[in-house]
């Protein structure tokens, strides 16, 4: 039983010691003439330092993930010592210290890029694991096919995903109806019509919208847009008197998506070769005819990809719907009624008092997995389309 802090300090100390000793050993091995060494003396030091630290940190991380706390301290110290002694013994004038040091560095670089993979694995595992718990307590058919959502923490709740999916899709649909034409026309105007000056002002201004955190949009929906829609549209027209509604969340989300759609479409429209425009203009078409009949059809696959990405964004958006859409799960066509989404329910089931044995909490993981799968499919599809389209004009 070696305390962790002692073994870490030991490893660090050995590393630093090696960094100091190794160059001297190397110079001594070369008979005092550093020029005959295969590498600069400090490369020997670096090699020893890394040979000590890289394996000990690897053991530290692997061990704490596996929960092997008992012998971890010893393991780290032993590995550090082996690295220290091994790399010092290997020093000869012909030892290519730089190459060896660099292979340690490369290992670090590879480890860093594997973290991205591990994140995905972690996401999938965390959801599959808990979702399996959920489905062992709750029939999957009732989850995917039931139209009733009424969780009850005393048990016996109905947890059907359909009303949540309906709310999610309805809100996303309204957001896209609003954002796609505006974003697309803005992109067309900026890339085809706008003067350089106008572009230099309007483009950053639209991008500001992309930099605003979603909680700000959420508050905007709650404080301004919701009451406005209720007082001037819903109530006078007899559609209901709820400030949080599908329309509120949809419109505000639409505003959030404008810069997303416009900057993606802007890239795609700019990728259409100038020669195609010139050909069309040369035949006497007006600028708008060129755009409608040449540029847009050529860019269509890319634009579809952009719209899919925007849709995936809308489906996964949380704060706007938490603050703007309401919490009532219902299947209704009235856009001025409060409805709820998958993300809202994930938040409400996982905040506050949670009990990880009850299906009412675990359902959030099944919801999360559904959300992840839907957005993943949309993303992959969109990325594939955009990639293919890029290759077409490269």
């Amino acid at each position, binding site marked *: 039983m070696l305390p962790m802090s002692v073994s870490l300090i030991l490893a660090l100390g050995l590393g630093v010691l090696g960094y100091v000793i190794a160059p001297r050993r190397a110079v001594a091995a070369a008979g005092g003439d550093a020029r005959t060494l295969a590498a600069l003396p400090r490369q020997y030091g670096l090699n020893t330092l890394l040979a000590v630290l890289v394996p000990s940190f690897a053991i530290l991380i692997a061990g704490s993930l596996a929960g092997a706390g008992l012998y971890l301290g010893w393991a780290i110290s032993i590995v550090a010592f082996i690295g220290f002694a091994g790399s010092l013994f290997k020093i000869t004038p012909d030892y290519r210290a*730089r190459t060896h040091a660099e292979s340690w560095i490369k290992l670090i670089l590879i480890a860093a890029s594997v973290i991205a993979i591990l994140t995905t694995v972690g996401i999938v595992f*965390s959801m599959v694991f808990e979702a399996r718990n959920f489905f062992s307590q709750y029939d999957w058919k009732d989850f995917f096919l039931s139209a009733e959502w009424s969780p009850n923490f005393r048990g016996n709740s109905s947890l059907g995903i359909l009303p949540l999916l309906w709310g999610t899709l309805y809100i996303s649909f309204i957001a896209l109806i609003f954002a796609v034409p505006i974003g*697309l026309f803005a992109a067309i105007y900026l890339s*085809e019509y706008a003067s350089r000056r106008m572009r230099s002002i309007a483009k950053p*201004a639209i991008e500001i919208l992309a930099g605003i955190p979603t*909680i700000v949009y959420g*508050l905007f929906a709650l404080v301004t847009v919701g009451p406005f829609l209720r007082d001037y549209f819903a109530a006078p027209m007899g559609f209901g008197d709820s400030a949080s509604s599908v329309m509120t969340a949809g419109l505000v989300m639409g*505003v959030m998506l404008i810069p997303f759609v416009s900057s993606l479409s802007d890239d795609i429209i700019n990728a259409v070769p100038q020669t195609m425009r010139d050909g069309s203009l040369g035949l006497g078409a007006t600028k708008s005819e060129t755009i409608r009949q040449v540029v847009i059809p050529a860019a269509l696959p890319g634009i579809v990809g952009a719209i899919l990405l925007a849709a995936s964004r809308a489906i996964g958006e949380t704060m706007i719907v938490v603050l703007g859409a309401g919490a009532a799960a219902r299947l209704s066509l009235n856009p001025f009624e409060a409805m709820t989404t998958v993300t809202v329910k*994930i*938040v409400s089931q996982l905040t506050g008092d949670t009990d990880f044995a009850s299906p009412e909490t675990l359902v959030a993981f099944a919801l999360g997995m559904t959300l992840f799968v839907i957005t993943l499919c949309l993303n992959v599809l969109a990325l594939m389309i955009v990639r293919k389209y890029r290759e077409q004009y490269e």
Partner: protein
Amino acid sequence: MTHKSLLTADARTKKRNAAEARFKSYGLGAIVVAMLALALLLTSVVSTGSSAFKQTSATISIPLTEAKLDKSGTRDLAVMKKVTTIGYTSLLRDGIITAVEELGLETTLSAKDIGKMLSKEAAATVRNRVLANPEIVGTSVEFKLLTNGRIDGYFKGRVTMESAALDGNTSPEELQLAQQLADAGVFATTFNWAFLTAPDASDQRPEAAGLGVAILGSLYMMIVVLVLALPIGVAASIYLEEFAPKNRWTDVIEVNISNLAAVPSIVYGILGLAIFINFMEFNQSSPMVGGLVLTLMTLPTIIISTRAALKSVPPSIRDAALGVGASKMQSVFHHVLPLAAPGILTGTIIGLAQALGETAPLLLIGMVAFVREYPAAYSAGAGLFGEASTALPVQVFNWTQRADPGFVERASGAIITLLIFLLIMNAIAIFLRRKFERRW
């Protein structure tokens, strides 16, 4: 068929030109709509939130009668602590009534209603001061105390005589008296530093709620994100951009990273809850867990921008380094990386700004908790960044869930603060890009 002059447009040309003009106006319209939305969003937030930076307080002298605060007369703290804030409330009432009488103001309000004009927080303020310095008991001391949320709202225009008449918590008479007290200089509305430094306050006292804990929590999380995401992100990008062979394995990593960038943020919250809290047993609501989740979330952003920055360094630089005998690793670390640094920094700052505004994943890892203690960066019991905390955007969400309308103003004020932080970060990013960007 008669031939017309080319200079006069025929019907078809006119139609086509009209279509052209129409099309162009649609484009302009779209931009105008986007701008209007931006303007509306900002004015809505600023108009409801700017008043959070002002606060009405009363400067009155409070008689700290010994009979009430320290019956034993020993100034023994243990005994004095037994007098709760309720015991202080009557002293505050005496203080403000004396002030009203000294000014000779006429009012029909009962003593109780006059006492209510001060915030519930005011008694705690006085109590803390007395306990910190027991010697002042028995004297009259001048205090600057918060007024209640409705009075404060009246001076900021949020509460009017009409709304007060309908409100059970205040009355027009109270507001009239408050106006008279303000004219006499007892009540004053000044800049509200406490909003930026004080901790959160309970449901009934929006006037005392501040962002201190939230700002500190956000700061801790940003430190975690910066320390972890920057080195890992840069290392991963260097490998993928400079060393990785083109094969199926690196293809998987690439697709994976672009997918991670598009995964909904709430999914990262589920990851944090399941892995960091339930499995690895980090403390709930701690900036450490928040920072780890945000790190995983910002990594793809940092990797994508770092790779772009590395890619923009021309190959001739690498070739020159290799030509004079540098190894591949040396050419990257000594030459390519320093040249790509401004781009990497810009990308990192933008990633940090994104992380600072992110709310949804933090809700799931318990940062919605009501926290009044300033979290310590390190404590023996909770470890590094392990104490419960909140974050700026979560504090906004928290305040929107409360009933008192005073909290809407606080939430918008918090958003203004958040936006100012984001503005500063983005300005730094733009400055760095302008100053150090090189065109090859």
